[in-house]
């Protein structure tokens, strides 16, 4: 199968005053198309930083990242934004819906950015699929946490991404609601063949993916292993 994400010898340091803080060191991994993949590790292990780098949200100090066949470190900020718009979906721990937009408008934004004429129609279908057919015109503040995360999942799938990054998608939800959202995520992944990369410290959730990468202190302590 073709690789959708290739990461080689990635290093990331932050400077705080005169001190340098190494967050990630010598990270290499590759993920195949349609695969489900989990990055696990304790707090401060660099999981979320790695996710951000893989999605082109930040630049590494050294190493290379190839996302959807494109070496992203060579792209400008705006070129990376376009690449994300076309190929990447996101689900965040704290939902990150735009508070001033309704559920329907939130789901439509990625499509509108592509200039799609059917943004509204597709968004309605997706919201119905995630069980929010009666919440089109509700603002995020009028929805429960579970509902907000379902809108976020619908938004993440709206641009039919090749790869979907989920950062602690159940972190802010109770167990039951979290379960439902995860089921939704995996079902949609199966339906559309999207690669799913989940950052979590919930091992039970990680077990549901095909492979798991373990991080500690910014280093890989265990190379991707099959979850089963």
């Amino acid at each position: 199968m073709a690789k959708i994400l290739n990461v080689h010898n990635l290093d990331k340091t932050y400077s705080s005053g005169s001190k340098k803080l190494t967050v990630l060191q010598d990270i290499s991994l590759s993920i195949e198309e349609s695969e489900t993949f989990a990055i696990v590790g304790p707090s401060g292990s660099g999981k979320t930083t790695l996710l951000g780098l893989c999605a082109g949200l930040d630049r590494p100090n050294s190493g290379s990242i190839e996302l959807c066949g494109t070496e992203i470190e060579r792209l400008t900020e705006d070129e990376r934004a376009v690449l994300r718009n076309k190929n990447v979906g996101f689900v965040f721990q704290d939902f990150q819906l735009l508070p001033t937009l309704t559920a329907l408008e939130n789901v439509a934004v990625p499509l509108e950015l592509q200039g799609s004429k059917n943004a509204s129609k597709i968004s309605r279908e997706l919201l119905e699929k995630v069980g929010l057919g009666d919440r089109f015109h509700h603002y995020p503040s009028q929805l429960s946490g579970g509902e907000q995360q379902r809108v976020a999942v619908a938004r993440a799938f709206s641009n039919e991404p090749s790869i979907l990054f989920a950062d602690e998608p159940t972190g802010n939800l109770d167990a039951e609601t979290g379960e439902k959202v995860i089921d939704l995520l995996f079902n949609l992944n199966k339906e559309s063949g999207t690669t799913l990369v989940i950052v979590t410290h919930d091992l039970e959730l990680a077990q549901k993916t095909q492979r798991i990468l373990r991080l500690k202190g910014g280093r890989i302590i265990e190379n991707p292993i099959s979850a089963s």
Partner: protein
Amino acid sequence: MNSDKVTTSSRANFGWILKMAWRDGKASGSKLILFMASIVLGIAAVVSIQSFGQNLKENIQLQSKSLMGADFTIDSDKPVNERVQGIIDSLGGAGAREINFASMAAFPSTQATKLVQVRGIEGNFPFYGELETEPATAANKYQQKGAALVDATLMLQLGLKTGDRIKIGEISIPIAGTLISVPGSTSIFSSIAPPVLMPYELIEKTGLVQTGSRIGYDYYFVADPGTSMEKLENSLEDVLDINDADLDTHTSTSERLGRRYENFGKFLNLVAFIALLLGCVGIASAISIYIKGKLRAVAVLKCIGASRRQTFLIYLTQIAFMGLLGGIIGTAAGILLQQLFPLFLGDLLPVDVQMSFSPRVILMGVLLGVFMSVLFALYPLMGTLYVSPLQALRVQGEGKENSGKAGILVLAGIFIFILLFSYWLLEDWRYSLAFVAGIVITFSILSGIAKLFMKAIKKYFPSSWGFPARQSLLNLFRPQNQTLTLILSIGVGTFLISTLYFTKDVLLAQASIEAQTDSPNMILLDVQTGQQEEVAQTISGSNLPVINNIPIVTMRVNSIRGKPVNEIEKDSSSGVNNWILNHEFRVTYRDSIIASETIEQGEWVSDIGDTELVPISISDNFAEDAKVSVGDRLTFNVQGVLLNTVVGSVRTVDWSRMQMNFSIVFPEGVLEDAPQFRVLTTLVTDEESSARLQQELVSKFPNVSIIDLRQVLTVIEGLLAKISWLINFMAFFSILTGIIVLLGAVRTSKYQRIKESVLLRTIGATSKQILKILALEYIYLGVIGSLSGILLSLISSQLLAWQVFDTPFVPSLFPFLVLLPGISLLVLIIGLANSISVIKSPPLVVLRKEGL
């Protein structure tokens, strides 16, 4: 899924940006209320002043003919000579003529006397405008009837009615009616000497036309249609000038009048501009709060594929639209507001101002709204460009600060805008540059004070203080503190308001007259030499003192440093001011200088000795305008006799003192035998003795004019009250905008303070402790900010008084006693009101509500 899919921008077009701006704005519009209020107030202030000024100018132009009552006039202060009469005839003869002078009038029916402006009129004056009388027919009949028309206010004051008699000089005539309005009489002068119209042919019989009386001879003309006033003026000006006459056209008169109001308008424009500038500070602070709340959404948008340009444009469009809306509302408010100005100014205005809508001002208001909003929002808006999409993942990356270059460009843009706009208002590059430089210096000094303050606290930290006091001080220099922003906003706001107040002080002090208890308050003019002893006796007979008995001799300048006046007039490079060459000077002689004078150059000579050249003393403004100094020769024409003099000294004269001051003073022993008249002064104690003395003087000496300074004072005080009303009204705008700026500044730091307070609350701090910490912090900021603002304004006002108004400046205590505690209290109240929810509600509720 390969690199050819990657382009530099997504396919969403401007329509999408508009759609996003609308969607987002719809839900967060209420957060922009502060921003809108800043624009609306600033624009309303500028538009109201601009629009009113424009309307006033247009109305003066439109009503120029009815202001004068004719197309043009020829006037002189002596009977016209043959040459001038020839010119008058060549112009087809005057349509009407007038003799006017100030004189005492007596009203036998009420036993009252009053200084009036007598206008003896022949012909069909006015040709334009209206002679408004009650009854209306009186305007047409007073000339045939040999009767007078008396000013309406005077009729009312003295309880006169049509049919009563008025005694002017030697004659007594009936009053034909009440004079409501007449072209050529301004209301300010009318309140000191109200106009009385009477037939021209009766003037001779009053016996008041004699030497010493200040008499005006006016000839009114109607021009043929199509006559160019400018050409007429150019062709006749010189020849009339030589013959002591003057030509005034309705256009030049209205221009002069317009200019007089322009200066006043310029000051009001500056006041409005200050309100606008405060509004701009308000915009910047409101937008920075707004954008702060949007950064998360920007990060998310960038995460899902929006470009930097797109996210930037969404908010820029929103702000431009709000600016447009604010501009429209502000302009409408300004246009409505200007309707109030005539109420404040009343009869200060020379014409009835008909309000119309000036498209130029409307366009300016609306465009200013958009331009100002965008310009002052740019810096905080640039924050969206540097938001990392990583923020959506809760990772605080190494967020780039606003680029230095772009920041400098925006700042430069702001200063160019302020400079151009102040030039547009002031029409003087020097003042505009000084104004902008003043703003830059003020900002720099205030930031310096804020930084110094923080450093000083760090260095001399009072470790022994209690927890709340220490914590409140610590808050001032914690990371991401708002100390600088708050001190700047509070300081600039206080500075502008306080400068405005001090400037008003300077302006009003310049015009006000101190009530000097021992100085004369009644002036008797036109006392003939032969009458002086009798007049003095009459005053003494009423148990009143004769304070001054000043001789006055009229003369004209004949030559300066040996060069005759007519040659100087032709020489355009001479630099000598025209009034020096044409004015009939009223000169006195005495043996010493008086209290209102100080010798600046040379020496006062009281004894002329044997020299042929008379050493005289001139005022500094005469010296400047005549381009002469000590030792220069001047020749005067004293009613036909040439007198050679030399400048012995130059005096500074305090013209603002209500007393007889002179440009030229001769020593004793020269002018005693020249034709002259006298001015006597006395001090009357009350209304009754003033009335009694006036009655007695008028019946004995009908040619003597009496000015009761207390009446003049009342008129001037009324005038100043009206002006200060308008200035206060405009200052109110600045204060209101200042409060909005303050609200914005306090809200900017609200989130951080709330977070901290909640934390303190969670770990057990009591409401009282939190309240104390917050209160102390706001008090420090309020006091430091407003005190620096007031002290700075003291310096700037001193500079203004010294450089612009050329007058001593005694600051009033108002800013220290009212502004300082007032603003500090306001900061405290606004600050605490914003944090009260933290103290009242459980911590978790606050966190959820504030989305922290």
